[in-house]
């Protein structure tokens, strides 16, 4: 069956360090992969999208990589700040479908 796994339920790191979150998938051939941020009691907010033919995408302090051989995406936040504390969701769309499927998320806490 198709699965999206975000390896860590929770990640706790020191302010200023780089946070790295992992998204692995099985039995998918995604056309692209997206990352969203979700704060408690709020809807997900889109951050970045990377296509299957792209290796890396950057936006300010955020970087996403996409390895279709390993079936993995890494999401990095550099110079992390307490305001980056949230749950981060990876999301995939299969080539033949219109729906976007979400992973279970990684709860990131940045301590001052």
């Amino acid at each position, binding site marked *: 069956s198709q699965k999206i796994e975000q390896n860590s339920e929770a990640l706790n790191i020191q302010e200023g360090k780089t946070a790295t979150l992992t998204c692995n998938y099985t039995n998918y051939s995604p*056309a*692209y992969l*997206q990352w*969203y941020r*979700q704060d408690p*009691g*709020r*809807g*997900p*907010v*889109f951050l970045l*999208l990377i*296509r299957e033919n792209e290796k890396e995408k950057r936006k300010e302090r955020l970087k996403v990589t996409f390895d279709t051989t390993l079936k993995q995406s890494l999401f990095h936040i550099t110079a992390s700040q307490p305001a980056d504390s949230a749950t981060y*969701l990876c999301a995939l*769309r299969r080539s033949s*479908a*219109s*729906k*976007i*499927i*979400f*992973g*279970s*998320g990684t709860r990131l806490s940045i301590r001052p």
Partner: protein
Amino acid sequence: EPEVTQTPSHQVTQMGQEVILRCVPISNHLYFYWYRQILGQKVEFLVSFYNNEISEKSEIFDDQFSVERPDGSNFTLKIRSTKLEDSAMYFCASSFKDAGRNSPLHFGNGTRLTVT
């Protein structure tokens, strides 16, 4: 910045009752979605909607569920006879293009449905 709005923010209903959750998507968006999130669990796809019809639906979206775009601005999710396990946060989302054309989803802040 335009946003997706959902009402009510919290709905409490008794088992067996019908509920209608309302959403106003972003005005120039063409594709509409409902997702749900049971407390502590992942965001789950329910249904996508385009051109006044359902594009795709999940196995969760059974005969108890229906969606409608009754006018040019609202998008509703109806649950005909609620069950305890329908208690969840329901998110509406919209996108300008099909999610299949790399368009990100814009989510509302959800309606928390509590079935007692």
